[in-house]
């Protein structure tokens, strides 16, 4: 290969979404995150002799819901299979998964690749499986600890076709699925806790060739940032290898975020023969048309439709509607404030502005925001009816954030009502003009353009004098009247 070859990147993703069931997929243990090691592992999770799995129906419903949301086929019958391999955190020596006949197959989802272009990413299949436990190699000198709390947590493995051609597309696809599973309420989407993680299959090929290159599988990527970095690193590595006359080998690689590199975990030769076969302990999953219909009715308005509606019905920009539909929490929050205020743009600005900034600064989830949608909506209504100015609203918002009460209480307690009494405003305006004689002179001798700037100066002075309470449009009007005379 010469250095002038143009390379095309081919990416397929396997996403593991932990389904938001209360109990595990095959046992009654809790799936709650963060408990003391092995306190959420019962006889079934431990794989004790004699125990048997019993399917959690919620997990099935959630998988079907996902399938319906991506327009996939939900076969009448799907089956569980055993994937056999030995590892200390895999109690039974096999993972219950699905191999032939997964619960969801042949779906698709549309992603944005830039401002104007979209692309269909095909989803080959999504199947149910149980999670393994966790091995801890660090905390025990010369020993490994095994925590089986996670063992048996329900996972939906979502496998895409190799339809993505760069890291950005992969991230967009991932974000799309991330948003979707949260809308469907089938996954909490928490990447730090590992509820949403992915493996990326990456290969390259000369842009004019059909045949796919040898792929590397990058394991366990759990943030959008890492995924993008890992894919970019991997693509560079593969190009470098091939261009220096070497070969890419089929292997599993692990991304190290500290060093920003991927390194080999195991090669294909060391790969397991998983000896899949139908699990004789579990009956086939049978899905009737009625069940499908019932589940379909439970699917809420999905982000794509929501986004289009925000643009067409609420007159929001594409940018705003994208941001307000990223996840159901923000969309619900927006819709609640909109319901109260009927002011889409103002709501959008406050949510994406002051609210987002405060959440980010304090590292708080929208769900836990001290300012509820109702509180924000009521405050926006007070701006609307001129009780406060937009500027004072920032002060009110901060006070609400700090727990000083709702907008009304804060405005009353801090005496922040906007001054709309024209006599009072006139008094302040007159005072301001008297106190700034030189600027008044300057104004009178200025061009219209300059006048505009100087008005700003006077407005500022008046607002300061009124402690921000004067109604700015009234101030503007009065100033012009007085100065232009």
């Amino acid at each position, binding site marked *: 290969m010469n250095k002038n070859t143009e390379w095309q990147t081919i990416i397929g993703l396997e996403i593991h979404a932990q389904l938001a069931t209360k109990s595990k997929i095959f046992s009654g243990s809790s799936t709650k995150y963060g408990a003391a090691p092995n306190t959420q592992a019962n006889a079934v999770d431990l794989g004790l002799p004699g125990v048997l799995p019993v399917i959690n129906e919620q997990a099935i419903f959630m998988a079907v819901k996902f399938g319906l949301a991506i327009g996939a086929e939900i076969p009448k019958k799907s089956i569980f299979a055993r994937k056999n391999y*030995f590892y200390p955190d895999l109690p039974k020596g096999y993972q219950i998964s699905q191999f032939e006949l997964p619960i969801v197959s042949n779906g698709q989802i549309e992603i944005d690749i830039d401002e104007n272009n979209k692309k269909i990413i095909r989803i080959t299949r999504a199947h149910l499986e149980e999670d393994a436990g966790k091995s801890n190699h660090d905390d025990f000198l010369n020993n490994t600890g095994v925590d089986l709390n996670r063992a048996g947590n329900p996972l939906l493995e979502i496998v895409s076709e190799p339809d993505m051609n760069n890291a950005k597309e992969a991230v967009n696809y991932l974000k799309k699925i991330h948003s979707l599973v949260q809308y469907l309420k089938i996954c909490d989407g928490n990447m730090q806790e590992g509820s949403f993680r992915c493996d990326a299959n990456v290969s390259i090929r000369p842009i004019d060739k059909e045949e796919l290159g040898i792929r590397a599988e990058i394991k366990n990527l759990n943030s959008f940032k890492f995924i993008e970095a890992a894919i970019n690193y991997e693509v560079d590595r593969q190009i470098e290898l091939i261009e220096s006359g070497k070969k890419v080998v089929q292997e599993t690689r692990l991304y190290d975020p500290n060093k920003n590199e991927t390194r080999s975990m195991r090669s294909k030769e060391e790969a397991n023969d998983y000896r899949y076969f139908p699990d004789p302990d579990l009956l086939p999953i049978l899905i009737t048309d009625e069940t499908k219909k019932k589940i379909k009715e439970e699917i809420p308005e999905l982000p794509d439709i929501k986004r289009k509606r925000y643009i067409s019905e609420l007159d929001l920009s594409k940018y705003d509607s994208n941001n307000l539909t990223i996840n159901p929490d923000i969309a619900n929050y927006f819709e609640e404030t909109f319901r109260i205020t009927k002011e889409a743009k103002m709501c959008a600005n406050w949510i994406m502005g002051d609210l987002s900034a405060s959440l980010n600064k304090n590292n708080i989830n929208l769900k836990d925001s001290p300012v509820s949608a109702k509180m924000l909506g009521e405050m926006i209504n007070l701006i609307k009816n001129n009780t406060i100015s937009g500027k004072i609203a920032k002060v009110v918002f901060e006070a609400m954030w700090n727990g000083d009460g709702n907008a009304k209480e804060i405005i009353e307690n801090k005496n922040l009502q906007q001054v709309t009494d024209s006599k009072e405003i006139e008094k302040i305006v007159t005072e301001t003009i008297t106190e700034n004689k030189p600027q008044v002179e300057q104004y009178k001798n200025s061009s219209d353009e300059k006048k505009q700037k100087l008005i700003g100066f006077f407005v500022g002075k008046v607002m300061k004098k009124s402690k921000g309470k004067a109604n700015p449009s009234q101030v503007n009007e009065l100033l012009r009247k007085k100065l232009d005379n």
Partner: protein
Amino acid sequence: MHQSTLAELSSALESKKISSEELIRGYIERCKKHNVSLNCFITITEDEAIKKAKIADKNRARGNHTLLTGVPVAQKDIFCTNGVKTTCGSKMLSNFIAPYDATLVKKMNENGFVMLGKTNMDEFAMGSSNETSFFGPAKNPWNNDNVPGGSSGGSASAVAARLCPAATGTDTGGSIRQPASFCGITGLKPTYGRVSRYGMIAFASSLDQGGPMAQTAEDVALIMNVIAGYDGNDSTSANNKIEDYTKNLNDSIKGLKIGLPQQYFDKNLNNDVANLVENGIKELEKLGAKFIDVDLPHTELSIPAYYVVAPAECSSNLSRYDGIRFGHRCNEPKDLKDLYCRSRQEGFGKEVKRRIMIGTYVLSAGYYDAYYLKAQKVRQIIRNDFKEVFDKVDLLAGPTTTGTAFRLNEKLNDPISMYLSDIYTVSANLAGLPAISIPSGFINELPVGMQLIGNHFQESLIINVAHQYQKATDWHKKIPKKYE
């Protein structure tokens, strides 16, 4: 008292002829005395049994009891018993104390059964002679030089020697019926899914089924009334109505159509056994049953299909014995691989390892279609054979085994010949059908069993026929002299 059936013991307790404590103490003494030579118990739970017997007596005095409160029973050591060692006949689990009760055990406890102990068995139920047990073979009470059969050999031996009136067994390819036949007792393998598998240590999940081993068909019915039924913990357990298995015991069998599968009277069948089974058939004819010859044309494929499916499932089921969380762990492992290899190498016996290897092989990439998938197809064909036959007849009759109990060590080093001794029993497992073995005579003082196979969930019918047969004969009443 030890010669009594469960039904008789139940009456004796009811009429206060004896207390449960006296009864249990008597049986425990017999168990301790004869286990030395028979080796049919791995664990005798003396203290616990006497404690339970006292509670049973109190409950009976209070009127808070079932028909069977206070009667003794032995559990095959494949059933998990809370707080009691559950070894599955293996070194791997020689120190394993189960932290929970199998559903079958729980039901029996709740119904007042008093467990005397845990019976010997082939390691992980893999064997037809009880010789693969880590704890040494149980012996046949009719001749201590002969095997009791397997894998539920300990249970069969204990019931035959009247160390307990009844016991439980499990049957994956004949493991209840073959030892019942070899030891001259009555053993029922219920329909797959009729008795919960929860807590029954898995050998081959799609074939395993627990069931009763007793002196009479009537006792089998009494136990079935306790252990049968749906279990939310076992997805494969059947969620349909359970009958009162004692209700039809005395129904006339006049006019019943019984099929004789020609393939069960083939060249493998010992002539003397054939004669005895024919005598049994004549008895049933006298009672009004009608016999017709039927075909199960794919019978000879059952053994090869079974020895693909069962090892495949066992190779996966036994992966959990890895030395990590419970069971045997090798000393000072070098690393993880060494821990796995040596723990399993030391913990499992030869036959178990052989089957794990066969199973691993048949599931491997490239061999799956040729072996596992093909075996599953054969299984379907065998099911269909039965389905067709049951359109014509009400049940089937034939021999349980090709011959009588063989000598210890006779077949131990000839696994194929050992496997072939299951030829008349495995088909019922592959098809999931209920089947019972009942004593039908003796050859050289060794018992012979006759097998009745019913359609799915037709336990009542085959128990009824067995009971009628036992009312007309007394083979089931014979007790080996030493143990009278």
